[in-house]
């Protein structure tokens, strides 16, 4: 029996594993990096051990430190969660050698699936359908290999998952660069730069099967999940069952998955991933020898606790009857709420999460590693939470989930919430026509804030009136007098906000006849029903709406039935110290400098890459804003930069120099 479990992970999954452990009576130990020192999962654990540093390679990827932590705390088992050490056969072996039980499959099973190439060969032998492909190294003849596979070709890391380092290549010319880039990212993320080429199936569905094996030779499947809606190869919407899978196909998929599991003597929870093409044929993709991010959808439709089952299997128990006889109940959909700027190309976002509240609706589950006040740092995956809804039907689950997201209060960090809500309400999604090309087809959903425009004036007004109420209640003198009272003229009060790219100036005056409002000079016919520093109730066009307003210095976060807005207050007076040099290249996001491609004095063309940043495991190129000469470069490789930091300055040549 496990008495104390060390969770070698962070964020929502660490918390999720600990909750189950506690429910089973098992004590928990957290390990944490420096940026995570105040994270909720650390507080949730009974004990915690610091892993000094921030980068995963210094902290959560350090198997030796994790085992030392287990020994220091007397933990008799280690749960690796997903990512980090979860699919590291070496770590599983070291655990076995050092004492604590590794909650997962055998090191051999991990190793056999760790190399995608080996895994594929193994599966092919076991009779599981596979896609043509090949592993490449520095000496490979990439053109020849690709020709054999046929374009388009997918380049991806042989080790690790999560889409990092993945690239689709349509022609031989792009291949060399793509492979080099993928190798670099793979080496950085997983410590192994081996990459893999494979036939790329255009717009397939991504269907995976949950399997569970025990140490007594039993392997069962817990039905499929569909995770086709992806951005940058990252899943964002996952569900179970798949709308594209009928009972017959489910049985086929299940049988193939169980065969795969048995072929490697699988124990614990694992996932066999397939691609399902437009014709309904499926091909083996890979086995994830760990708990999957999207495991909650399976839990909701089966009523099982997969973490509890993992722990029981690790304790040597056989699979219970509720697993071997599991049935599907209703439909569950999960969305991954990411801190990211969708219209800007899913750029990771950082910042302080001033408020994080998701309404507690029946059937809705929230797995999160953040709370009010959490800082979203650039060091790790930007996923804030998984929000999962269970319904009798798919449509019901989608409706509940959309409402939970729409009425959520997520303040301080840009998220993909609007995109998720739009997807959940989009007819093609609701008809079950999902595949990996879904977001490409629905670029309008990604494009940004056409929707935000509808009610931005009332929201800006709500922010202004809440600010007004706060100003009155906080006033040291004359706080009880009518707001903005004037005996002559009655100039309106003015406050401006920026909402994305747009600036909105709100002017309002309380008059005997009521509230007088203009937004950007346009009159807004509105009746004010109440304003406090936290909430404003307005009637516009006969419709009464209540907006909650959360104010933190510089920002007003407005949530209403018609959507949310993060409004940055334009200061009344300019900060005398804020002057940006024209032609400055600013870091678009926090991250580390990988390469500097130009030096002072170099002549550069607009659009030419000057600095390459790595953030969130992705490389971002910062290009020259104008034609000109590099005046100065303020950063070098290895530097950490913050958003808005000046990286380099490009000077436009003066007229006479140009002629």
């Amino acid at each position, binding site marked *: 029996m496990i008495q104390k479990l060390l969770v070698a992970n962070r964020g929502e999954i660490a918390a999720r594993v600990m909750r189950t452990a506690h429910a089973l009576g098992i004590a928990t130990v957290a390990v944490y990096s420096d940026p995570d020192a105040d994270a909720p999962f650390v507080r949730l654990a009974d004990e915690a051990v610091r892993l000094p540093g921030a980068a995963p390679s210094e902290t959560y990827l350090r198997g030796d430190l994790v085992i030392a932590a287990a020994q220091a705390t007397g933990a008799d088992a280690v749960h690796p969660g997903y990512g980090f050490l979860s699919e590291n056969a070496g770590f599983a072996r070291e655990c076995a050698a050092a004492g604590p039980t590794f909650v997962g499959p055998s090191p051999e099973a991990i190793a056999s699936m760790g190399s995608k190439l080996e895994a594929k060969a193994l599966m092919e032998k076991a009779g599981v359908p596979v896609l043509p492909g090949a592993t490449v190294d520095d000496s490979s003849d990439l053109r020849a290999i690709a020709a054999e596979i046929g374009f388009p070709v997918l380049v991806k890391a042989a080790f690790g998952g999560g889409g990092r380092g993945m690239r689709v290549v349509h022609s031989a010319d792009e291949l060399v660069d793509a492979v080099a880039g993928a190798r670099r990212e793979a080496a950085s993320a997983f410590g192994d730069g081996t990459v893999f080429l494979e036939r790329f199936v255009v717009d397939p569905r991504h269907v995976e099967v949950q399997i569970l094996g025990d140490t007594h030779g039993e392997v069962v499947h817990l039905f499929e999940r569909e995770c086709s809606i992806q951005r940058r190869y990252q899943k964002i919407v996952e569900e179970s069952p798949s709308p594209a899978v009928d009972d017959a196909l489910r049985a086929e998929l299940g049988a193939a998955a169980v065969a795969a599991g048995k072929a490697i003597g699988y124990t614990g929870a694992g996932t066999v991933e397939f691609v399902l093409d437009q014709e309904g044929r499926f091909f083996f993709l890979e086995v994830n020898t760990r708990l999957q991010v999207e495991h909650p959808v399976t839990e909701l439709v089966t009523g099982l606790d997969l973490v509890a089952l993992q722990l029981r299997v690790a304790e040597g128990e056989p699979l219970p009857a509720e697993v071997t006889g599991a049935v599907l109940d209703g439909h569950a959909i999960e969305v991954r709420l990411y801190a990211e700027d969708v219209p800007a190309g899913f750029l990771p976002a950082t910042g302080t999460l001033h408020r994080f509240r998701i309404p507690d609706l029946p059937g809705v589950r929230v797995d999160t590693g953040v709370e009010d006040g959490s800082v979203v740092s650039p060091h790790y995956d930007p996923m804030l939470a998984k929000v999962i809804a269970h319904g009798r039907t798919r449509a019901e689950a989608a409706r509940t989930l959309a409402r939970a997201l729409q009425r959520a209060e997520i303040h301080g960090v840009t998220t993909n919430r609007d995109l998720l809500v739009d997807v959940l309400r989009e007819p093609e999604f609701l008809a079950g026509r999902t595949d990996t090309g879904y977001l490409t087809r629905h670029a309008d959903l990604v494009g940004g804030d056409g929707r935000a425009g509808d009610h931005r004036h009332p929201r800006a007004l709500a922010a202004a009136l809440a*600010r*007004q109420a706060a*100003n*009155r209640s906080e*006033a*040291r*003198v*004359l706080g*009880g*007098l*009518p*707001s*903005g*009272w*004037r*005996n*002559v*003229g009655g*100039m309106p*009060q*003015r*406050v401006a906000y920026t909402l994305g790219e747009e600036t909105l100036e709100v002017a309002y005056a309380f008059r*005997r006849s009521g509230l007088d409002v203009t937004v950007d000079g346009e009159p807004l016919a509105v009746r004010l029903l109440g304003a406090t520093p936290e909430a404003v109730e307005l009637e516009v066009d006969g419709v009464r709406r209540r907006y909650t307003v959360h104010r933190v210095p510089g920002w007003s976060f407005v949530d209403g039935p018609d959507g949310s807005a993060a409004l940055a207050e334009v200061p*009344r*007076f*300019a900060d*005398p110290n804020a002057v940006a040099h024209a032609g400055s290249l600013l870091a678009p996001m926090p991250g580390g400098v990988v390469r500097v491609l130009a030096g002072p004095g170099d002549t550069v063309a607009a659009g030419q890459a000057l600095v390459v940043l790595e953030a969130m495991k992705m490389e971002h190129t910062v290009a020259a804003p104008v034609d000109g000469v590099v005046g100065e470069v303020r950063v070098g490789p290895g530097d950490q930069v913050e958003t808005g930091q000046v990286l380099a300055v490009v000077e436009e040549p003066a007229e006479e120099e140009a002629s």
Partner: protein
Amino acid sequence: MPVLKSLLDVSSETYASNRKAQLEVIDQLNEQLELAIAGGGERYVQRHRDRGKLPVRERLELLLDPDSPFLELSPLAAWGTEFTVGASVLTGIGVVSGVECVVIGHDPTVRGGAMNPYSLRKTLRALEIARINRLPVINLVESGGADLPTQADLFVPAGRIFHELTELSSSAIPTIALVFGNSTAGGAYVPGMCDYAVLVDRQAKVFLGGPPLVKMATGEESDDESLGGAEMHSRISGLSDYFATDERDAIRLGREIMSRINWHKLGPAPAANPQPPRYDPEEILGILPPEAKIPFDPREVLARTVDGSDFDEYKPLYGTSLVTGWASIHGYPVGVLANHRGVLFSEEAKKASEFILLANQTDTPLIFLQNTTGYMVGKDYEQGGIIKDGAKMINAVTNSRVPHLTINMASSFGAGNYGMSGRAYDPRLMFAWPGAKLAVMGAAQLAGVMSIVGRASAASQGRPFDEEADAARTRAIEQQIEAESHSFFVTAKLYDDGIVDPRDTRTVLGLSLSAVHSQTVAGRRGFGVFRM
């Protein structure tokens, strides 16, 4: 809790017609206020903007704390004169960085912000209000100096501005000058005498003599910037304490300065969470009769003015022509003296005297609501000692040391004006409702008196009395006095601090009470309360 019970019938015809008449008067007021707001008019405002400058009212709005109230003073100064309504200067009481202060802003769109005799009186009154109530002063400076054709009425008394500024400073009341433009010759002493001076780059011109005058005086060639620019005064002369890059920056600096003056009000704080009146202040318009001749019950006004309509009346059965009692307004305790039936008899005078002494004993500010035709005349009253009793009241008002706030609701005639703390009795602030009249006596009475005197004089000299000429003269005099009694005429001469909408009375008093509590609130000591 003696709560006033209103007997006002808001569905009555009288109410409707009273209200209609008052709304007309208020419209006339607003029409005149629009002239003050317009300043130098569209053309000059546009020219000012084209120079990248903000009109004075926009400077003010940027200066004040967001959503805070502002009480503008004497907006109709110079009304009915050759000068622009408002007298090219804006004054008032507002809140800057949490501090109540007096703001004095030149309107450079009116003859370059030049000062005429009315601007001077308005400015001096604002400085006086600052001094007696202990309110810091912020000057928004941009003035071409004296309106030279009127220098004879201006030059000597204008020296008082600098006297007041430095006296404020010596009383530990900070003064600030934000200089947006011209501040030359005598005007240069405004930043010179203020505790803090902020000069706007390439706009401020602070010098005793400009380039032409320097050329005339000494032959020296010079320019504005080297004689008085912000850069020069910030780097070389040191007259400027803060260099502002533009107008907004100057206002920002002014707000910063105010946030650092470590300000504490000396008067007691108001009670928290005062209740609003139980009756709607809007209804005050229906109380006021269209003619001063018809009295009205001031309790109906108080029921719409004081906290919770809670009014504890003093001597309600004695001297009933004057209502006295205790209440609070926006949490500040006050004593109220309000004329009921116009005339002050001996009883009213004695009741008022005692009440004023009581207020001084308890350090309670006094509110005077005037609607008086003066002290009673006639044999019985003279023989009854009305002069002595009136003198008691005027004595009490004069020597009272608690703050007085006076509002002329409808009429303020004769010595009643004095007894009810009129202008000459130094109320801290004094306002009038737009329909109010003020004069030594009513126009008809005055004209009638003149006629009687004329007739008597003719009779005594044995001259025939020209009835027709007398009627014409009487009419002319009546018209003249009527015009001079008009609230616009009175306020134009700075005999009060402004005309206010009757519905704003509670707000005006609340703001005024808060302002006067910047200063110590203490009554006169030395004698007990005389029972008269």
